[in-house]
């Protein structure tokens, strides 16, 4: 996926300015930036839910040439807070991931069922298929939504803050799973996140957005530098190199960066 010169505004408020991003098979890209920096908007533009100036192309084909259905077989999207109905069964939710493959009257193929079984197995949901959505935990629910995305058998996944409602253990599990998908199946993953450290630990590349502009785009080591992050987040930052590689970012909470100190 490549996008060039994306510019978008809600009314007069400009949200994206000349954004260029790319996403390649097998890589995990973290999309970082403060609230209101345009992360969610960028994802919606890449999916064609919002129309922005500039060009987005998936697999070297401009977005306009994709039908919704064809794109849904290649690109999956996990919303920030996916809509759910407590009465719905886990199996029913997973099935909807195959909607881009259904024929008229919603008729399914054998493949559809096999894919859903495999996804349920992989995410440890096989025993929950008959459960209602309001009977399972928040972490399990998030896995169901992820499963719906995987059922699409996508070549790329765009995730909007998938960690929001997860505890630490589930966050790490989710990131491990995404890594595995990228490595084993060559899935391209773009994940908007607030968590600098998790992103630093799991991403191959970081795209840093601020005020609708790409401030930095590169390997974790290059982007996750104290002066870059401090400028974007407006808080003093300290980057601690980890012995095994990677880095940990901590904001300075002692106020030593404050003009009042």
């Amino acid at each position: 996926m490549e996008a060039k010169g994306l510019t978008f505004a809600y009314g007069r408020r400009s949200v994206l300015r000349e954004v260029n991003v790319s996403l390649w098979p097998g890589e995990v890209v973290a999309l970082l930036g403060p609230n209101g920096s345009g992360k969610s908007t960028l994802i919606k533009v890449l999916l064609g839910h919002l129309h922005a100036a500039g060009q987005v192309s998936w697999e070297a084909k401009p977005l306009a040439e994709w039908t919704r259905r064809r794109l849904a077989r290649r690109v999956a999207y996990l919303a920030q807070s996916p809509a759910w109905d407590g009465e719905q069964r886990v199996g029913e939710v997973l099935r909807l991931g195959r909607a881009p493959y259904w024929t008229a009257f919603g008729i399914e193929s054998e493949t559809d069922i096999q894919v859903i079984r495999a996804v349920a197995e992989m995410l440890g949901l096989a025993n929950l298929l008959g459960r209602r959505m309001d009977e399972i935990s928040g972490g399990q629910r998030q896995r169901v939504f992820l499963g719906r995305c995987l059922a699409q058998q996508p070549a790329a996944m765009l995730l909007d803050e998938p960690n929001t409602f997860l505890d630490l253990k589930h966050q790490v599990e989710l990131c491990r799973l995404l890594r595995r998908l990228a490595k084993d199946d060559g899935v391209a993953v773009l994940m908007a996140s607030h968590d600098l450290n998790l992103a630093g630990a799991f991403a191959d590349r970081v795209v840093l957005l601020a005020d609708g502009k790409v401030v930095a785009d590169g390997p974790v080591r290059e982007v996750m530098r104290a002066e870059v992050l401090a400028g974007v987040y407006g808080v003093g930052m300290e980057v601690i190199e980890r012995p095994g590689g990677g880095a940990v970012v901590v904001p300075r909470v002692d106020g030593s960066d404050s003009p009042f100190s």
Partner: protein
Amino acid sequence: MRRWGWGSLVLTIGGSVLVWAVLAAASLCVGSSGDLGWPGRQVYEIRSEWVYMASLVGAALAAAGVVYQAILRNPLADPYLLGISSGASLFAYLWRFPVVAGVLGVLSTSSGRALSQQAFAFAGAMVAVAVVFTLASSRGRLEPITLLLVGVIVNAVNGSIFLLISELAKDLPNSGGPMTFLVGRIQTNLTPAQEWAAAWVIGVGWAVLLYLSGELSVAVLGTAEAEALGVRIQRLRWIGLIVASLVTASAVAISGPIGFVGLVCPHLARLMVGTDHRKVFPVATGLGAGLLAVADAGSRFMARETMAGTWPAVGVVTGLVGGPFFLALLWRTRLSGIEE
């Protein structure tokens, strides 16, 4: 987990027909003189027309209800509460004016007249849709409760317009009594052409909606997620809204606005078969057909208690049953909160 194939579709429709058949058979056993039991041949002729007409109308309203609830993501939606039925009803009434009839004189065949009545009701439904949706939307969003509030007010205004016109023009040819246009009633003084026109329009519309039933399950998720799952959601909403309103109008043209069938049946169907619209749609249709036949039989049974040998319109029965159902649902939804 079972694959949803053609066999499942046929079985589900078959099961729905069976549900209808049982309820319809029970309705056939209820007579207006208060007698119960399987009718003799002559009585069967009369009663079966009631049952078939009620079934046709009930099926149409329930099917439309499923679609409105899905595309509006509103569990309280119903063709009657949205004001669509009353719009169709008012226009179906205007169609009876001699002036209108004169203009339509070119359509002198009975099927042409029947179709023009259908077209009139559909136009009324679409006018009501336009008014209700314009007034209820603010900045492109439809607030669920506001939508119903506007719908109910449109109902009231349409009812007043109707009463005013019927007062001013007393000599208008009425069919089924003036109340028919306020509270729906199953009519048997229809021409065969009217009955067939309605049956065809409802049948074709129903098939189109069944075709879309898979996408309706996805539509419930909301705009962004439905699009990400390959559904052209705006197009689906428009087609759903127009075809469901066509089916509603077609039923209302022959029966007047019968309330709550389209609200209750989708919920009962979901209780029976879950949330997958590929199942909910046919099952709700079968339930709608059967239950309206039963409700009509119930109103017929009350004839024994009345002096004149007449009986209350079936809309009275559905209102008495469906109203409390709506309130219970409203109470429950307010507890859990409607999204958006």
